[in-house]
């Protein structure tokens, strides 16, 4: 389909961000090399350009960082909540001040479009710190009894899909409640966490309260299994989540896990189709579908299936894929070669199993990691693409006739993180929302987030909630 409009390039300037050629681990307020001197490179997934070289933490570094956090815990937890609050408010403000720089950095390191980092990730990051800052001196009123105590040292491992936002979800409530943290960002997106270390420095945060360890899964494992860690918070794959749940058995570590999903986005025949189509697009193509709560299964009522699919394909053909720094880009790069390979394999499996593939007719850049927006029709519940989390811009379309069938199909998953409902009928929204076994239900909207709103899954999507008053519980000894 010919493009209706020609767009001139409108790239956001890279000059707002100054990436150093190398970074160390941030332990006890200082940047330091890994004990064994190991480093690894981080690349821009849209160009494969090497952005920087960062230290690769090992078990010895984990131990150092946990010791630093333990040492800092005594004073930090003894600070009046109002003082901890002010540090967090400072951090929130500095993030706001530096948000354009951080947005560009995140887009470079992650590959997601600048319009997302600029308009979604960064505002939410600042808001999250601002929100939890206000809790620090109000914990007596949070519903967990008087003077609830922090747990101690939190070991936090976060994914690459929303690097700085996941950091905020982990660090803000941990610090507000008086814990100290050791955080490991994902190996493909280490930079924004290291910039955050600099923000902690600017905010005058006491040494050792926040420690950042860049590295691979082995460092994450060493962190969550460290005997002096009191709290484990993990966002990532269900397989790793299960391994963590096993590793903490028999300890008194408190654990929260935010894992995979296979969200059902249910479109009833009375839904406003144009709005629903926008919601379907947001649901699965936001952040290239690399979202745990993505609406990766479209359940569309049979009577409007053709109409919805036609409109959807027409809309997908207008999405602009390319340079993530371009302000008009809708679809950025896949985060890594490894993730691209995983998506490709699952899509091939979908085709091999007989599902019908359609991909938007767009040109893919010659370097970097890219995948065109894709949907599968002729999908049954037994198909791999209807069951496994793809974590990419791939939508599986199934149909239904009755609301009961929609609910049964939506709930037919090991996961239970998110779901969407599109209908004009209020009572149907409430009835269906009530029956869906999912932690977040978006009705006539999708992929909305807010620091006041608890987020987390049912079943194998993990346990515990992040955000809101509920998010405090994960970091308190209650």
């Amino acid at each position, binding site marked *: 389909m010919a493009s209706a409009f020609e767009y001139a390039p409108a790239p956001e300037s890279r000059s707002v961000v100054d990436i150093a050629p190398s970074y160390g681990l941030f332990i006890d307020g200082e940047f330091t090399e890994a004990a064994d001197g190991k480093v690894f490179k981080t690349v821009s997934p849209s160009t494969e350009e090497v952005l920087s070289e960062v230290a690769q933490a090992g078990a010895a570094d984990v131990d150092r960082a946990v010791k630093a956090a333990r040492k800092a815990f005594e004073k930090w937890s003894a600070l009046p909540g109002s003082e901890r609050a002010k540090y967090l408010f400072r951090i929130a403000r500095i993030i706001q001040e530096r948000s354009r720089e951080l947005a560009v950095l995140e887009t470079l390191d992650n590959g997601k479009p600048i319009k997302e980092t600029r308009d979604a990730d960064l505002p939410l990051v600042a808001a999250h710190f601002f929100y939890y800052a206000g809790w620090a001196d109000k914990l007596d009123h949070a519903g967990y009894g008087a003077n609830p105590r922090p747990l101690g040292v939190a070991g936090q491992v976060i994914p690459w899909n929303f690097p700085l936002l996941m950091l905020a979800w982990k660090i803000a409530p941990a610090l507000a409640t008086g814990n100290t943290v050791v955080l490991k960002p994902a190996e493909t997106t280490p930079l924004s966490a290291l910039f955050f270390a600099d923000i902690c420095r600017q905010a005058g945060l006491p040494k050792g309260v926040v420690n950042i360890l860049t590295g691979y899964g082995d460092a994450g494992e060493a962190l969550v299994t460290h005997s002096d860690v009191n709290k484990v918070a993990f966002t990532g794959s269900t397989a790793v989540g299960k391994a963590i749940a096993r590793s*903490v058995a*028999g300890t008194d570590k408190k654990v929260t896990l935010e894992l995979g999903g296979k969200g059902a986005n249910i479109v009833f025949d009375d839904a406003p189709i144009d709005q629903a189509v926008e919601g379907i697009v947001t649901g699965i193509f936001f952040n290239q579908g690399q979202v745990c709560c993505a609406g990766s299964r479209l359940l569309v009522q049979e009577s409007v299936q053709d109409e919805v699919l036609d409109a959807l394909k027409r809309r997908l053909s207008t999405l602009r894929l390319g340079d993530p720094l371009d302000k008009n880009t809708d679809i950025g790069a896949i985060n890594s070669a490894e993730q691209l390979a995983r998506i490709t394999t699952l899509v091939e499996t979908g085709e091999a199993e007989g599902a019908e593939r359609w991909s938007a007719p767009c040109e893919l850049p010659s370097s970097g990691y890219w995948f065109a927006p894709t949907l599968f029709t002729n999908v049954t519940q037994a198909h791999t693409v209807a069951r496994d989390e793809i974590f990419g811009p791939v939508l599986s379309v199934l149909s239904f006739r009755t609301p009961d069938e929609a609910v049964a199909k939506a709930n037919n998953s090991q996961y239970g993180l998110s779901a969407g409902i599109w209908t004009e009928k209020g009572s149907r929204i409430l009835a269906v*929302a009530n029956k869906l076994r999912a932690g977040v239900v978006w*009705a006539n*909207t999708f992929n909305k987030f807010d620091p006041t*709103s608890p987020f987390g899954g049912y079943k194998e999507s993990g346990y515990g*909630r992040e955000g*809101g008053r509920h998010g405090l519980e994960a970091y308190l000894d209650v």
Partner: protein
Amino acid sequence: MSEQNRLGVFKTYKLYVGGKFPRSESGRVYEVTDSKGAWLANVPQSSRKDARDAVVAARKAFGGWSGATAYNRGQVLYRVAEMLEGRKEQFAREVAASEGLSKSKAAAVVDAAIDRWVWYAGWTDKIGQISGGANPVAGPFFNLSTPEPTGVVAVLAPQKSSLLGLVSVIAPVIATGNTAVVIASADAPLPALSLGEVLATSDVPGGVVNILSGATAELAAPLAAHQDVNAIDLTGAGAELAKELEIAAADNLKRVLRPLPAEADGPDPSTDWLAAPGTHRLTAFLETKTVWHPTGALGASGSSY
């Protein structure tokens, strides 16, 4: 015939599964003795198959029980207290024999167990307001978080506090709409099996509470590994067993309530279980569901809602 000469009628203790009172499918029984070693009864020694059957019954009951109104669940739990009140003497006898308590102490424990049902009966329609609520999101959205039951919960009842401890772990699980598969204290299962008779006459729908007697580890292992069990309360497990079960439970990411430190179920458990229970046993088996909906906006140029 004088009272002295009358031969007593023994009760055949049976399991409580799906609202019925089956024997173990295995045909096995084991001897239960009082604290001095005197024979009290032969009780079913449940098998793995009995445990799986109980999960099926609990899953079948979940839709109706979780879908019942909180007010209705409160009335049903209160009804349990009423029925127990009427059978106080029987339970005091069983508790005294099981735990080696004096008559008066056993009576106090039974009273506390009845009061515990009353406490949790009152919670059914309040926990939603305490643990849920509207979230003031920064946008034109209605945003509401509501607690929901997590599903089928396997409950390892305390080994020592055979009635009060048992009630203290069952009531919070079902108050919020979960259904339960309960493994009674291995050495002191009689109050638990009798509680099944109380539940059966208290308007608790069949399958909401299922009670098994037998070897704790033998029954807990298949429950901890069961893919259709959503959560497990390890209160009645020792440290070593608890660790094994927690590892097995990770396979489908069951919610796990770890056992209390050993002393809490110690030599005088009745004292500890007499303490105010708080809400953590309620919230341990709740999920939070958050629903978003646009609110639209009224503007000078017309409405968009």
